[in-house]
């Protein structure tokens, strides 16, 4: 029985990204109304179509109510007490990284994000977003040689308004849900990726989101378009300082894959989760959706969710194109008073579409970890297949693990398989490993890592190492 307490102890790990960067920022006043939206749009010198998009979304948002079906218990959010635009003060236009405030570079350095060009060896292009704006995007010239556009969404609005107008809001419409509507009204920055026909992106692309200010929300928007026969692997990471107030993060990610295109979207989410008493932490309400528009297109989501006080996130795939493929691989770790309600939606619309869902949830402390997923076979999805597997691991007898799979089929010539199981770190396995001379802490870490192996195998190499380390860190601590 003693081991149970030890397991509980080893999941305690202080948050090491909780520092605040002392930098001069430009903020607008708190509150949300049409004038604020016009101000954000004006600050970003946006074309009229985008301002109209924002105002329309705001009107829709005003008529909507906050969703409560996930049963997440959190204090009501005062949307008028949030700053919707906050940016570090710097020169208007950055032509090279030398002009970026060194403090900012230092911040990203501390986070282990290679913004400086000498770190080329990592071969990952990074778009760094600090509070509401994108600070820098690396390797742009190299990417441009291949015709790949990788920039902040604000720049894309200026330089490629036709693409933005054509695709923005086509996967996640403003009226999709409460948080998507809010994001559509106030989104400040994010990343834009365009991979032209036939191009395999020469390097992994990455966005790094950093919330620095305690009273401003972060509302980024990411749009990735993969033209015919192109492919890209995109990585996303995020951290935030420790504040005793809750910060709202409501992002929207839209992916579009045309014929034979493939998009791999990987996330390691490590927002500040609040302290042991549940004070502070990020409210992470995110809408992520990909549209497999083309034949044989493929969208793959992989995520490692370890942070945030509350996570409400369902990366989804709309499988329209014939033989298109959707994948979802997820590890969600909750501890203390964290709550995670995450899963996916696989909507099979076209014929011969396939989807795979592998979800691993680990609940420790007093946390609540739920898998909520939808698999739907439409009437035209003949010959389609889905396979889902949801496993939960419980550490301690105070945490809860829930599974809510919604399965709907309207097509007899399709197959859906779903399975779920629950387990814990068993005394027998621990004893076995320890009897072979493996330290208790390492044994727990090995077992958690083994439990998540199916998902880690799907992550790009850089992230797989980071994710493994992240879980190990969360499991590192005071073993007595």
């Amino acid at each position, binding site marked *: 029985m003693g081991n149970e307490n030890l397991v509980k102890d080893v999941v305690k790990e202080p948050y090491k990204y909780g520092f605040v960067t002392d930098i001069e920022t430009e903020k607008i006043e708190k509150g949300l109304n049409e004038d604020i939206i016009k101000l954000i749009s004006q600050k970003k010198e946006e074309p009229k179509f985008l301002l109209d998009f924002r105002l329309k979304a705001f009107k829709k948002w005003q008529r909507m109510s906050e969703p409560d*079906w996930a049963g997440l218990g959190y204090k009501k959010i005062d949307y008028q007490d949030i700053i919707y635009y906050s940016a570090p003060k710097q020169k208007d236009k950055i032509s090279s990284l030398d002009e970026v405030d060194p403090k900012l570079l230092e911040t990203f350095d501390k986070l282990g994000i290679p913004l400086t060009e000498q770190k080329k060896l990592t071969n990952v292009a990074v778009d760094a977003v600090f509070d509401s704006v994108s600070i820098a995007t690396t390797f742009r010239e190299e990417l441009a040689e291949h015709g790949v556009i990788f920039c902040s969404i604000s720049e894309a609005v200026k330089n490629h308004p036709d693409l933005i107008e054509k695709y923005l809001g086509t996967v996640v419409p403003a009226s999709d849900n409460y948080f998507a509507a809010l994001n559509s009204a106030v989104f400040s920055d994010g990343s834009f990726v365009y991979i032209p026909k036939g191009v395999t992106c020469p390097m992994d692309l990455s966005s790094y989101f950093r919330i620095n200010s305690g009273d401003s929300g972060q509302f980024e928007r990411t749009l990735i378009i993969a033209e015919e026969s192109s492919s890209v692997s995109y990585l996303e990471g995020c951290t935030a300082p420790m504040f005793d107030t809750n910060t709202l993060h409501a992002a929207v990610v839209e992916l579009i894959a045309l014929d034979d295109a493939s998009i791999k979207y990987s996330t390691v989410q490590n927002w500040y989760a609040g302290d042991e008493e549940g004070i502070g932490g990020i409210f992470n309400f995110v809408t992520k959706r990909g549209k497999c528009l083309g034949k044989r297109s493929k969208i793959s989501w992989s995520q490692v969710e370890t942070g945030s006080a509350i996570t409400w996130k369902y990366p989804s795939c709309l499988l329209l194109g014939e033989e298109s493929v959707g994948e979802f691989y997820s590890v969600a770790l909750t501890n203390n008073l964290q709550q995670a309600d995450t899963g996916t939606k696989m909507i099979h619309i076209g014929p011969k579409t396939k989807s795979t869902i592998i979800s691993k949830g680990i609940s420790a402390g007093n946390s609540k970890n739920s898998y909520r997923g939808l698999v739907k*076979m439409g*009437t035209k999805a003949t010959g389609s297949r889905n396979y889902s597997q949801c496993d*939960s691991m*419980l*550490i*301690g*007898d*105070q*945490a*809860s*693990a*829930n*599974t*809510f*799979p*919604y*399965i*709907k*089929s*309207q*097509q*007899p*010539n*399709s*197959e*859906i*398989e*779903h*399975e*779920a*199981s*629950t*387990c*814990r770190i068993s005394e027998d396995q621990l004893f076995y490993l320890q009897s072979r001379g493996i330290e208790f802490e390492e044994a727990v870490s090995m077992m958690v890592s083994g439990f998540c192996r199916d998902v880690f195998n799907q992550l790009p190499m850089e992230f797989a190492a980071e994710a493994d380390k992240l879980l190990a860190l969360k499991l590192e601590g005071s073993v007595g």
Partner: protein
Amino acid sequence: MEIIEKIKTNKSIDNQTEIQKICLDKLQSSPLPNPRSEQWRLSNKSKLSNFLDYSVNENYSKFDTPYPKNSQSTVRLIIGENCQIKLIEKNYSIQQLSEDELHKYIKEQISFFNQNEHWSDLLNLSLSCKNNILGLKINGSKIPPIEIFSHASSNSLNAKTLIIFLENNCSVDLLQVNLCEDNSSLSQSTFFCLEENSSLNHGVVSYGVNKSNLLNSLNVIQQKNSEYNLGSLHFKFNYARFEIRIKQSEGNAKTNIKGMQITKKDEQISTYTKIDFDGPNGFLDQINKSLADDKSHAIFEGSIIVPKIAQKTDASQLSRNLLLSNLAQIDTKPQLEIIADDVKCKHGATISQLNEEELFYMRTRGITLTEANKLQLSSYFQEIIAFIPVSKDRWDLLDKLLNEN
């Protein structure tokens, strides 16, 4: 929605009993379940409204049972027939519950009712008159098989209630048959209390004719070391809803459930199950099968709740579904809510059609397509039917099903 209008004005029933009054009061503020709630969101609103369109019939009318009673030892009861039963034998006794006992038990149950979750029971108890409530107390050993019939006559809404206390150490086979005539609605609520070391093999067979509707609610409380086995079959209903709520109040109990629903034409049949483990060492093995053809809709929602106290629970739930037509649809949602960490819980769900390779194999051996289909279906049905305590020589359910499908 005739009944709802009456409930709103509280004029539904003359000579209301106290229980009816309590339930009518509870329903008055919100007479219908919340269509946005998880339990009712997939329920067809117009079909539910059709269920409530008939006027209440409290009288008993004669009907033909599906098979004759030919065994001397079988106890056959028909709810509403005004039957008096008091069987006291050497080894066992089957007696009716006194009015006080019934009253006390129902009142206690109502106090736990949640408006949405127990709406079917609230409606049943607000409409069920004294004659249509059958309460039994069973004890002893070597108890003969019991058959209980509920019947709904044409163009009316009938409410029948069954309450059974199974006392310590007794073991019973009970078959419950719900029959609905043309254009009729039956509200059937059943309450079982299984005391320590008791065991109940329960079969529920419900079927209708054209435009028959059924709201069938089953509430089981299992005490320590009890065993509850349920085999259920629902078919031929315009609208049917089967709610199963089982509570292992102290853990250490065993529950086995095998259920099947068959939908055709534009029928909708749904099964909702909620299994609460309120103590350690509980066991559950559940299979629910659906078969949807034509333009019909079959629904299964199962939830398993394992709180902190329910350590060493072993629960599995499987939903297997056959979708036979392009216009039919199946919704299934097996869910787990777990807090205890030392448990074995799993669930699974599949939706597909009849296996084409098997069909091909049989046809290459000279079996016609119709015969091959029949063979496949019979193997699909057989697993469930074998679990229903009914003797084959008197009522061949498999033949009945194969002929109907």
